[in-house]
């Protein structure tokens, strides 16, 4: 795969993403009125929920790339899976940190072990383990195979985790949570939400492309070290 076109694409995506994010910030802090019951803190919602959706999308891409990798054995798909998982973990971290910050003033608690929260946490743990596995394996086709297997297994686990926690929760009644998601969002709020969704999506695409470019650069460097017959320096 050539780096140059991807490099350009990553730059273009970055510009678009910054524009979209600025627009989204304007919408969130200027355009949209304050929500009546939750107050200003509700504005977290506009970045929190799209981050959650994008992290889930990232893990889904990791799953698809892993399956495709095992069929075709192309290094490009291995890179895509790794990059998607990493960025998925970044957005998932955002979700797990902004979530409690939003929840505390509204629900009075930082955290509750309900199905959605618990599944998000388990998802984060699975993909952190995935990244750790990659870090501890020597690079090459072997690592790609093993990581792909975990990428597939981890994703298949998600619906089962969600189901099991839901059953579990019906046994232990959780604190009553008021309408978490944007049920019956006012039109200007819905518009703001949609703008934020697009902005976070652009950010995701930009990060994904950048991460792929860096991984390709790493391959190039490894290749050049072999060409030059020099041992690469030890990296922490």
């Amino acid at each position, binding site marked *: 795969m050539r780096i140059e076109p991807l490099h350009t694409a990553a730059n273009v995506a970055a510009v678009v993403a910054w524009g979209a994010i600025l627009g989204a910030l304007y919408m969130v802090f200027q355009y949209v009125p304050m929500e009546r019951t939750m107050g200003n803190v509700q504005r977290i919602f506009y970045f929190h929920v799209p981050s959650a959706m994008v992290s889930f999308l990232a893990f889904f891409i990791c799953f698809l790339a892993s399956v495709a990798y095992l069929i075709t054995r192309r290094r490009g798909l291995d890179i895509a899976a790794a990059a998607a998982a990493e960025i998925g973990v970044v957005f998932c971290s955002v979700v797990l940190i902004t979530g409690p910050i939003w929840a505390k003033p509204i629900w009075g608690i930082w955290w509750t072990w309900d199905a959605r929260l618990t599944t998000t946490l388990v998802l984060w743990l699975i993909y952190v383990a995935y990244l750790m596995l990659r870090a501890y394996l020597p690079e090459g086709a072997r690592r790609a195979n093993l990581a792909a297997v975990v990428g597939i*297994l981890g994703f298949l686990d998600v619906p089962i985790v969600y189901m099991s926690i839901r059953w579990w929760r019906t046994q232990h009644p959780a604190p009553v949570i008021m309408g978490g998601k944007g049920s019956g969002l006012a039109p200007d709020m819905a518009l703001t939400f949609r703008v934020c969704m697009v902005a976070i999506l652009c950010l995701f695409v930009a990060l994904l492309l950048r991460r792929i470019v860096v991984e390709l650069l790493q391959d190039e460097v490894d290749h050049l070290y072999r060409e030059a017959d020099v041992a690469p320096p030890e990296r922490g």
Partner: protein
Amino acid sequence: MVFLHQLFTIFMKDLRLEWRTREAMSAMLLFALLVLVIFNFAFNPDRELVLLIGPGILWVAFTFAGVLGLNRAFAAEQENGCLAGVLLTPMDRGAIYLGKWLANLLFTLVAEAILLPFFVLFFNLELTHEIPLLLLVCLLGTIGFTAVGTLLAAISANTRLREVMLPVLLFPIIVPVIVGAVESTGLILNQQTEGLAGFIRMLALYDVIFLVTSTLLFDFVLEE
């Protein structure tokens, strides 16, 4: 027939190795026993508390012991490159997975069978007609976590720090098994039947899904 013969050959080899060294078994038993003892000190539970936290303690002991056993399972295969030796023979990859899984399952079940009386004894439980159901839950839960565990042990055996890597990979993925097993055990100990069937069905479903997926994915773990 050939497949079953291969599977059985792998299974018997693992049994023989374990019988020789008794490494996995002694580590599992001692560790799980320690978990039971330490938790007893940590909570100093009375009768009611035991019914509440007992199931969790039991499954922490089982799964942590299981991880020790799983880590051993591929240590012997790594020594002298034995796994490559097995791969040189005209055998089905699936038979390797199922043979090793059955061996792990047996070791873990034996360890659990020894631990269960200690659990009842230490926490002064009175069990009679609940026992068959409890054994069913132990069987289903253990099938679930050893099925994924065998596959992940084969993966983590390739890494440095494999002793750390296996639990890090395994525990998030077996959350449904732990939830299902702990809840079912709790319901059984409290002599409640409501909701029990749902959890047992969930455990069984998990077992089927992950046995099938792991068998299919195992090929890719071995291949270079």
